[in-house]
């Protein structure tokens, strides 16, 4: 047990840190630091820089374009990405579909899709959730009927993040009604440009617009777009949802956000002194930091066990659950810090257009402008991707045997 970096690890960290800080475009960094809305181009520009460097898919095997890093190196890389104010890398291709294709795809599927994911040529979105299904994923009703060498797909997907930017969607569809509801599900890749695919944005309570309904009406999908076997999609879905533990807790980003808390608390005042000097605010910061450190150490324990050969288990649920609790705890600290300046808001703020930038709108300081919106938006973290209630039930069942 050793928390110090080896000389090699130290050199790796310096290397990564140097590159990331030198190469992140300042306009993108600024948006990330202030919590402003990123558009497609921001993501793609940055991901291509990482792609050129060979660092875009640290979790992929080397043969498919991964850098071949150790778990510690990956951990350090995540840290440095967050510290450099990198946007979140869009996970749908890199952390979801990529590993699925590597595990279940045909040679043709791998050869075609994987390089395009690495190069950010295809933007993927995820077609799992349906209206009415909620956390009960397997009760999905979108239907794919085989018709010659095509499937005809009808149904509706919802809560589809950033579908407005997507070129492709990977979907769970029902191909059979026999047996248990988990048994008749297949995993299908659908080109968003296919006739019959419609995207309708869903406005969210923070004023943002990053989730969508996706309607599928008589969508004709070539049969070679099936991944794995027909009716075997549930296995793939489970693999996809539990495969990636790295970064699921969001520790690196939360550490960066705690810096933001400190920064803002240094600017905001309380009783004539900077808020950062208020003993009780510091106590609340300490409470969140304790949870964050505990989470980080727990992640390191799990990664060490994995590196030592243990198979990933249901402990990923702890990382997801506690991770979102910590993230949401930080949004609460930020909100508290800005006091009554939390009121001022105009959706234009998120678009980087407010008086600080020379436009009309609330005269609110830059550091306070997006905090309330961020707090509201981040409530989603404990709902999407397997709600925290689902994670609790997984732990109760798979770990405690209840």
């Amino acid at each position: 047990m050793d928390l110090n970096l080896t000389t090699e690890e130290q050199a790796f960290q310096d290397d990564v840190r140097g590159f990331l800080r030198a190469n992140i475009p300042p306009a993108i960094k600024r948006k990330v630091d202030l919590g402003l809305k990123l558009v497609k181009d921001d993501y793609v520009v940055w991901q291509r820089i990482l792609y050129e460097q060979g660092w875009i898919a640290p979790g992929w095997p080397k043969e498919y374009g991964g850098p071949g890093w150790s778990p510690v190196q990956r951990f350090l890389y995540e840290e440095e990405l967050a510290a450099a104010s990198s946007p979140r890398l869009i996970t749908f291709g890199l952390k979801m579909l990529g590993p699925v294709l590597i595990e279940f795809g045909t040679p043709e599927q791998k050869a075609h899709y994987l390089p395009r994911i690495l190069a950010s040529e295809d933007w993927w979105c995820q077609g799992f959730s349906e209206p009415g299904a909620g956390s009960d994923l397997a009760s999905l009703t979108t239907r794919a009927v085989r018709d010659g060498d095509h499937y005809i797909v009808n149904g509706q997907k919802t809560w589809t993040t950033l579908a407005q930017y997507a070129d492709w969607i990977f979907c769970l569809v029902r191909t059979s009604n026999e047996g248990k509801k988990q048994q008749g599900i297949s995993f299908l890749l659908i080109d968003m440009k296919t006739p019959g695919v419609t995207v309708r944005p869903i406005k969210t309570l923070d004023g943002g617009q990053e989730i969508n309904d996706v309607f599928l009406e008589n969508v004709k999908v070539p049969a070679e777009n099936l991944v794995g076997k027909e009716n075997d999609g549930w296995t793939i879905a489970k693999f996809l949802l539990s495969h990636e533990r790295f970064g699921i807790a969001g520790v690196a980003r939360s550490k960066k956000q705690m810096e933001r808390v400190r920064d803002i608390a240094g600017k905001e005042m309380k009783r004539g002194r900077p808020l950062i000097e208020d003993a009780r605010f510091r106590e609340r910061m300490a409470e969140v930091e304790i949870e964050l450190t505990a989470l980080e150490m727990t992640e390191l324990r799990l990664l060490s066990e994995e590196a030592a050969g243990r198979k990933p288990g249901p402990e990923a649920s702890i990382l997801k659950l506690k991770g979102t609790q910590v993230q949401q705890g930080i949004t609460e600290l930020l909100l508290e810090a800005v006091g009554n300046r939390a009121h001022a808001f105009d959706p234009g703020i998120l678009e980087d257009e407010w008086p600080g930038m020379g436009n009309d709108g609330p005269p609110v300081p830059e550091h306070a402008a997006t905090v309330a919106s961020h707090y509201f938006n981040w409530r989603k973290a404990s709902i999407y991707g397997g709600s925290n209630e689902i994670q609790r039930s997984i732990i109760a069942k798979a770990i405690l045997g209840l």
Partner: protein
Amino acid sequence: MNFTFSDEQILIRDMAERFFRDDYGLDVRRKHQALPGGFCRETWARFADMGWLALGIPEDLGGIGGGTVDMAILMEAMGGGLAVEPFLATVVLGGTLIRDGARPDIQADLLPRLAAGELHLSFAYSEAQSRYDLNDVRTRAKADGSGFVLDGAKTVALHAGTVDKIAVTARTSGGERDDGGITIFLVDADAPGLTVTDYPTVDGLRAGDVALDGVRVDAEAVLGAVDGGLPLAEAAIDRAAALVSAEAAGLMAALTRDTVAFLKERKQFGRPLGDFQALQHRATEMYMDTELTRSLAYMAAVRQDGDDRPAARRAASQAKAKAGQAGRLIGQEAVQLHGGMGVTDEMPVGHYFKRLTLIDHSFGDRAHHLDRLADMA
């Protein structure tokens, strides 16, 4: 000692609940938000017709009397109704300051107009550095002949962009955080040198930052005594804190009701969500905290009309601190238990949640009131 509503109070409650159930709603609200100034002047006139704007104003001054409890009943209904009209700014803050601080002739002039819906008011007391402390005032008022000249900047004054007069705290003597030396001036919104930057707030209301650049006022603009503005401001803010706690209770009740309805209706894994015991118990916590908040809000309302200032102050802080804690719990739980639907702009839950959250950032958040209670203890 008794803790029941009078027949008149039950009448106020029933009328208000009926109004918001039948004549308001999310679509109406959206329309009102989009109007100039962010609220509906016809609706405001109806408020006046129903006597709501005359609540708390003595009968001989054009009001219909009644006390803070009556206003709390109305505010609770407004919480459930998600009203965007500026009742808080004009009637609660403005009305209280004029009732407590204005000269009789000015009261006789302004209060009937307020009750009739013809006068809008705002109270600009906070500053960029003040957080929730009323004594932290940098805006200065220099005596100039028989009047004063005001210079400074105020933040987040509710509805300041659409009012006729703005009550402003300014320092006439003393240092930045001294309790003494603060004076409240009632300034015309169109006074030369006064500029309001108006903006929407995240919970769907409006507020403004107020810049004062050599604004001249007469001596009769002073509310209360020169240098003696702090107790006046404190009483008004304590009253507002009690009343938004009642509004918060109304929001909590609406969130609990909607969440319970959602749990009953929505099926998952073949059963209604409401069958899951963990969710039942969480809904129960929401319900209980709503009731506890309501109890404290009404206690605080009663206390605001009593003679015991420390008791009034303590009750306001207890109610507001509870509203902050319970509001956070209930808002977060309502969104979480609604699942994906909870984060859309479509359903009322998100709007209740936002207003409830911002109430914690009005008139002192939970941390502020716990500080204050700890200081008092």
